[in-house]
């Protein structure tokens, strides 16, 4: 049973549970502080494939395979797979998952895709449309660089606000029974655009969307930031995180004590040269499917608001001088079923 509370939030009765999850990352991510939580770590960014695009597809396939085996399920047990990535026409998902023969729903939510796909999988499961569904996403530094920025060997200069695309993938298997963690609520975000045009400052472009979605959720549910162990945004980085806290303070919402950002968790900002932090679908995907869900499973944290953020521009729109629209979707994860 799904019921609507407030204007934007869905409460998922018989809350679907997360029955399996897995993360795949590359070498650079494994050199960060979350190393021990990742399931599969590639020796290099190639993952044994010829092109960066194939490498990214491979990561998605491996993430799904590992999540299924951790859940003790096979592809035949899965009724839907919700997937998306950053590449044109979402080819990482299409090519990575084509052999699985699971009914496939392709999504594009830029870096918010982990929350978007997890929302869809949970809603389908809670509605009784399926017993098991998979949500998966990925990003790859090299495939994203060549599509959105410059060739890898180009000697361009990154500005301090630029973020580093995570080479990683995260996959979650949602089931309609069993134990926690549960997906209790979902808030689908609205597109927010406050006129940021700087392609090297995505955090600033996405922060208003995160602020709006968090505010809507808190208003709908009457909850406070203190009710959660963590409010986890996707990839706002240093600049976006600061802006998010400031934006919400203007509405008298103080999340500063509870806020964490996947883009800041995944790398060691002091030692690793990533400027303002990590970004990409694989950023929130791999952090959620490792460090966060691990710690929820062992009870170290119990209530998490997972708010993945995305920037919905393309190279064309940026070259045409358009500002960057942001999106943020919220998933309320808890060890306590509603």
């Amino acid at each position, binding site marked *: 049973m799904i019921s609507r509370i407030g204007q934007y939030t869905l409460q998922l009765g018989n809350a679907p549970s997360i029955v399996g999850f897995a993360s795949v990352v590359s070498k650079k991510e494994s050199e960060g502080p979350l190393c021990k939580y990742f399931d599969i770590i590639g020796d*290099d960014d190639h993952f044994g494939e010829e092109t960066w695009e194939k490498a990214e597809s491979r990561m998605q396939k491996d993430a799904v395979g590992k999540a299924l085996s951790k859940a003790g399920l096979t592809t035949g047990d899965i009724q839907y797979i919700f997937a998306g990535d950053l590449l044109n026409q979402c080819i990482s998902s299409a090519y990575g998952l084509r052999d699985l023969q699971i009914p496939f729903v392709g999504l594009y939510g830029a870096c918010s895709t982990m929350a978007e796909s997890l929302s869809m999988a949970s809603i389908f499961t809670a509605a009784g449309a399926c017993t098991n569904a998979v949500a998966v996403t990925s990003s790859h530094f090299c495939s994203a660089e060549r599509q959105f920025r410059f060739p890898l060997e180009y000697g361009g*200069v990154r500005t301090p606000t630029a973020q580093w695309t995570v080479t990683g993938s995260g996959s979650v298997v949602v089931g309609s029974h069993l134990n926690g963690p549960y997906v209790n609520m979902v808030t689908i975000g609205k597109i927010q655009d406050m006129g940021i045009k700087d392609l090297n400052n995505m955090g600033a472009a996405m922060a208003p969307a995160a602020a709006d979605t968090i505010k809507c959720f808190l208003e709908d549910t009457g909850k406070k930031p203190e009710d959660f162990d963590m409010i986890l945004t996707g990839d706002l980085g240093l600049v976006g995180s600061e802006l998010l806290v400031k934006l919400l303070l203007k509405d008298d919402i103080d999340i500063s004590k509870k806020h964490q950002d996947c883009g800041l968790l995944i790398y060691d900002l002091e030692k690793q040269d990533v400027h303002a932090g990590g970004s990409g679908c694989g950023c929130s995907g791999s952090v959620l499917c490792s460090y966060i869900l691990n710690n929820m499973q062992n009870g170290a944290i119990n209530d998490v608001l997972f708010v993945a953020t995305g920037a919905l521009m393309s190279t064309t729109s940026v070259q045409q001088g358009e500002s960057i629209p942001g999106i943020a979707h919220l998933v309320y994860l808890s060890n306590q079923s509603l």
Partner: protein
Amino acid sequence: MDMFMEYLKAFLIGGALCAIGQVLIDFTKLTPARILVTFVVSGVVLTAVGLYEPLVEFAGAGATVPLTGFGYALAEGVRKAVMQYGLLGAMTGGITATSAGITAAIFFGLLIALIFKPKSKS
């Protein structure tokens, strides 16, 4: 001593031109491609108004190696060609004078691209 002065002048002028480029990167929203275009066009214009030639005589490679020097070569080539061939020279002079550099970039570019593979950054 003459040799030392020659290198010092090349260092100072070349360094200064690069520093101007860095100022443009740091304080304007200009992307690297736009900065390169700005430098080449500036080189043509400065040569046209007679300011760049003295700089080349003073600093040698310090003025010819930066991309403004590419603009200088284009403009000088055109000037000489117009003297020799008239109107046609306006069309042929630029590329003729810079053909070695452009061809070198294309040839070495192809060669290198055939041999090597791009690597991820760390």
